């Protein structure tokens, strides 16, 4: 037994050296190589987002909304935002971008997706907003086309009033808001099929953007 005891420290020291050396090499190389793994990683979302942005579907957007992985940006006018918006969304009309973006920027970081939406199949506001965001260095920008109408059609959570008060809205009061909001969404969806008419009516003041 004596010789075993005599070589035991050597085995331990050598084993520890190998463990330490391989760990240093492994994490060092992992940090350097371009396809290195993030060591601390949250559970990945079931939603597979394209790397370069683009459009996002209502189902993906709703799932990211539920899991809190996305922030929604309302590209419509402030007035329309106050009449009703996706719960927790931030108001950022493209024409006010320069003034409002710096204040909102901290709230866009750390999310898997920044989702811009407006209303109507042909609405260009969300696309314009997405371009401005990309130009400002936000890469994970997605457009939820016809977002407000689709959101209401699925009776997903909405809120009313200016931003900042939305967080105080309780779930039950939102439920009661949903049906009128849904009707509004449907009607505006129909209107959106005739954007020229809308412009003439002066209802869609931001459509020219």
């Amino acid at each position: 037994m004596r010789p075993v005891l005599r070589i035991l420290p050597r085995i331990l020291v050598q084993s520890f050296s190998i463990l330490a050396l391989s760990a240093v090499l492994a994490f060092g190389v992992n940090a350097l190589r371009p396809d290195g793994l993030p060591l601390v990683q949250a559970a990945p979302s079931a939603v597979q987002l394209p790397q370069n942005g683009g459009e996002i579907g209502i189902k993906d957007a709703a799932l990211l909304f539920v899991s809190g992985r996305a922030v929604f940006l309302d590209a419509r006018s402030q007035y329309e935002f106050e009449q009703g918006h996706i719960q927790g969304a931030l108001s950022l009309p493209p024409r006010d971008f320069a003034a409002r973006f710096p204040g909102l920027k901290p709230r866009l970081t750390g999310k898997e997706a920044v989702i811009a939406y407006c209303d109507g199949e042909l609405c260009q506001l969300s696309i314009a907003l997405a371009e401005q965001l990309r130009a400002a260095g936000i890469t994970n920008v997605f457009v939820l086309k016809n977002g407000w109408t689709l959101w209401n059609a699925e009776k997903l959570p909405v809120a009313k009033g200016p931003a900042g008060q939305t967080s105080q809205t309780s779930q039950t009061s939102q439920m009661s808001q949903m049906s009128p909001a849904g009707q509004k969404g449907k009607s505006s969806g129909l209107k959106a099929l005739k954007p020229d008419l809308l412009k003439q009516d002066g209802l869609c003041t931001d459509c020219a953007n």
Partner: protein
Amino acid sequence: MPARLGAADLVLRLVLAGVLLYASADKLLHPQAFAGIVKGYHVLPELLVNAVAVWLPWLELALGLCLVTGLWCEGAAVLSAGLIGTFWILLIVSYFRGIDVDCGCFSSTPAAPGPTETGPAPMLWFIGRDAVLLGLALVAARVRLGLAKEGAQ
């Protein structure tokens, strides 16, 4: 006797090193795929999966190199046996938990879902293969420690 022991030690070390180096290569190249396999074992918390997936192939590489060069050889032999033994136990535990894991032993690509996927045959094959490797590692460690003990006397 020491000469024959020395020859056995060299052969065993080289074979074990070959197995370890071969095992590390594919995993070193594809850490993402290997992380998926590690996760598939359902033994590590989510937080540790990536770290272990990054570290294990390098540990195998280091062990293989030590066994080839003879540097820190006793430690490497004992660690190799411990590592392979751990894998073996993990495979057996997974088998009884009913988890059909991708072995991830020598390749980071999942085993081809072919006609063999009729039963638990791949798992038993993994376990049997690992048992052979464990035997090899244990004999190598035993021989190596025997030599070291003689040197220490």
